[in-house]
């Protein structure tokens, strides 16, 4: 891993209840984390797991109860570090009295962009999120999807090194979703580190290099996508025509044969068994269209991990 952009140690956050700060509940309970430069980092967890709290602590929006956080080599309480951070919050509310262009100018200025660069940056971001035509309209007139796209533009207007995206595709149609995914990948290719918080596990699976799964304020699992979604051992065969005597044809090879429309799934112990299986099918004149080793989807892995832990809070 390259140099860490985010380094959190024993992070705890206790939300207190009532006027006098009576006993509350721990949103984060001893989380330690490191995020490397140039990666797309996925943050998963059930509702109330502490994902948003963690991101907000990194941004100085929530005060931590205990622990240390270093963002881009500075304390997260230092406002100047936020010059290098972009943030698209979940369910954000941008100032409706401004037009898209005015809002981008406001946030560019607030983020300390040089006056000479602001116009270029605004046009560039509007182009990136496909909002150039609507930039002169007031934000209050935007649809949910447009608000999400202009929100993404405000998060990127100052060309940050680290971007936190909290449910970036929430409320966006499939085409817009794909466009946002492309933007994220483009940013990744430019070396921007992204921290993605999403409930859409497929999206996370497609984009993220590393994933952290949080539950009940603790890290349940952390790793690369390959580590979190291992092969199951099963192989799916797609055939031109499924023979009627499939079970007898494959007798003695692997286990747990599951016939499926257009093929079957078979648990195999090793590659030798896979070769034998293909040989049997071919010798019986069966045309094989595809052979696909089956691995766990992120969703299956995620649900499995939560079940093992006893379910969400």
């Amino acid at each position, binding site marked *: 891993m390259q140099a860490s952009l985010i380094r959190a140690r024993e992070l705890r956050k206790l*939300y207190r209840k009532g006027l006098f700060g009576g006993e509350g509940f721990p949103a984060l309970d001893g989380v330690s984390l490191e995020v490397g430069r140039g990666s797309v980092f996925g943050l998963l967890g059930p509702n109330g797991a502490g994902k948003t709290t963690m991101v*907000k602590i990194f*941004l*100085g*929006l*929530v*005060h931590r109860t205990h622990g240390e956080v270093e963002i881009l080599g500075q304390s997260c309480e230092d*406002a*100047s*570090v*936020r*010059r290098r*951070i972009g*943030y698209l*919050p979940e*369910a*954000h*509310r*941008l*100032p409706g*009295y*401004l037009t898209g262009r*005015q809002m981008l*100018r*406001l*946030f560019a*200025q*607030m*983020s*300390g*962009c040089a*006056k000479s660069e602001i116009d270029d940056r605004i046009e560039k971001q509007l182009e990136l999120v496909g909002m150039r035509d609507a930039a002169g309209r007031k934000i209050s007139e935007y649809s949910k999807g447009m608000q999400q796209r202009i*929100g993404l533009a*405000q998060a990127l207007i100052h060309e940050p090194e680290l971007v936190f995206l909290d449910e970036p595709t929430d409320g966006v149609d499939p085409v817009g979703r794909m466009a946002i995914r492309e933007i994220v990948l483009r940013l990744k290719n430019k070396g921007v580190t992204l921290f993605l918080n999403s409930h859409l596990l497929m999206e996370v699976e497609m984009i993220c290099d590393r994933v952290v799964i949080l539950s009940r304020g603790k890290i349940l699992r952390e790793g690369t996508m390959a580590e979190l979604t291992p092969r199951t051992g099963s192989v799916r065969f797609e055939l031109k025509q499924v023979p009627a005597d499939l079970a007898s044809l494959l007798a003695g090879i692997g286990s747990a044969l599951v016939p499926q429309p257009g093929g079957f799934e078979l648990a195999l112990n090793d590659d030798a068994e896979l070769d034998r299986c293909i040989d049997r099918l071919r010798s019986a004149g069966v045309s094989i269209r595809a052979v696909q080793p089956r691995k766990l989807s992120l969703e299956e892995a995620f649900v499995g991990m939560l079940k093992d832990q006893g379910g969400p809070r």
Partner: protein
Amino acid sequence: MSPTVRALFLDAYYQVLDNKVFRILVVLVIVLVLPTFVFGAREEGFVILFGMKTVPWENLAWLVGHNSNPDLIVEKFQELVVGGLAGTIGILFSIAATAFFVPRMLEKGAADVVFSRPVGRVALLFARYCAGVLFVAILAATLVVGMHVGLLLVSGRSDPAFLWTILTIVYIFALVHAVSVLVGVITRNSVAALLVTMLFFTLNGCVHNIWILSDYAREQGDLARNDQDPDAVHEDKVPPILYHSLDALHFTLPKTTDADLIVRKLRRVITERPALLEDGVTGTSVLESPEGFELEGATGKRDLEHEPARWKASAGDSGASLVLRREARLLDGKRRSKYTAAKALAAQVTKSGATIVASPDFEPGPGLHPEMVCWTESTGGSAPSCATGFLSLGDWMLVLEVRARENAGRELQSLVQRMRLDENDPRGMDPARWYERKLSWTGPLRHNIFFSIGSSLVFALLLFLLAAWRLKRIDF
């Protein structure tokens, strides 16, 4: 100005312009300014549309009285619009229009976007506070400058000091807006901020008016005891704790009701003409000589106790004279009021065989209430008419003596009106007038303008700091 600060102010400006209540208020302001361009008050009468039609003042006697004075009419109109409407109803409207500024910034979703920027929370809060003040400043400036230009062009009246009222309105609002900001941060609710601020504005005004009345009553009681006047001495049944509580509230709360008086005093400092004569001890000034009279001796500062001012008739009534002098109120160990002095003189005059005559109806200027004795001397066919007026000023009594061929009372009246004497005797004075007299740049703490402004600003600052402290602790 740094780009960040400029951005915050620009944001505030856009927020203000987008505000619907602001637009309504702009329309109302235009409605108030427009008449000053359409109608005018000139010497010749009430002018409509740059002289298209002129209605003589005599025809409007039912509305403005017989002694119509265009300056006075313009002044009353200004006071009604700026002091009455803008200073009270306008402030309440402005509270309603700006109460949401802070709570909306702190709403979930909005706060995340704004506070994740490299700008401190306190700076953002201050920008929102300024947005509110800017809101009112724009409206007040439009109203006052608009009226000023209208009155100048159509009525031919220009009082640059009137422009100071912009400051009054902005000052009052800046004090009240701090309450709105604090409540907005604590509750993060626009309705709560609006209601609490309106309630505060109203109650704060009540507290100060009650405090003025109580302070006035206390001083009246003290004076009566000092004068050993059994008719005026009443047993004070109010528990002292109540007075102390009122004092504590007065010293703590912002003194919004003082703003108008302070500006009036500032205006006076700016517009007052140099005096013809000034008493070095009481500070009482005489602006000009009464019509038909000439001052004997030098103009400027003098001690009226040892060097009384004398006027003699410039033509016609060669025997007529006016004298203004000062004497101690303490006489034979007793402190005299203007009433007791007049009573004693009347007895003396009667004893000398002169005939007391009724004093003319007096329409004095603000605060001028001399106690008068008028009489006719019995010296044959053409008995001269005499009048003496008493005005008490702290430990001093100003005595005005007039001797004329006839109707000396009217001459005295004319003298007083032209002289614009200060009257500092608080006995029987109207409480509002009394407080206006008391409030001064050099007075004791409870009546000191610097303290009034300073303590009010400190109050607003404390509320703002409290709001900033609370904001810094919020977990969004």
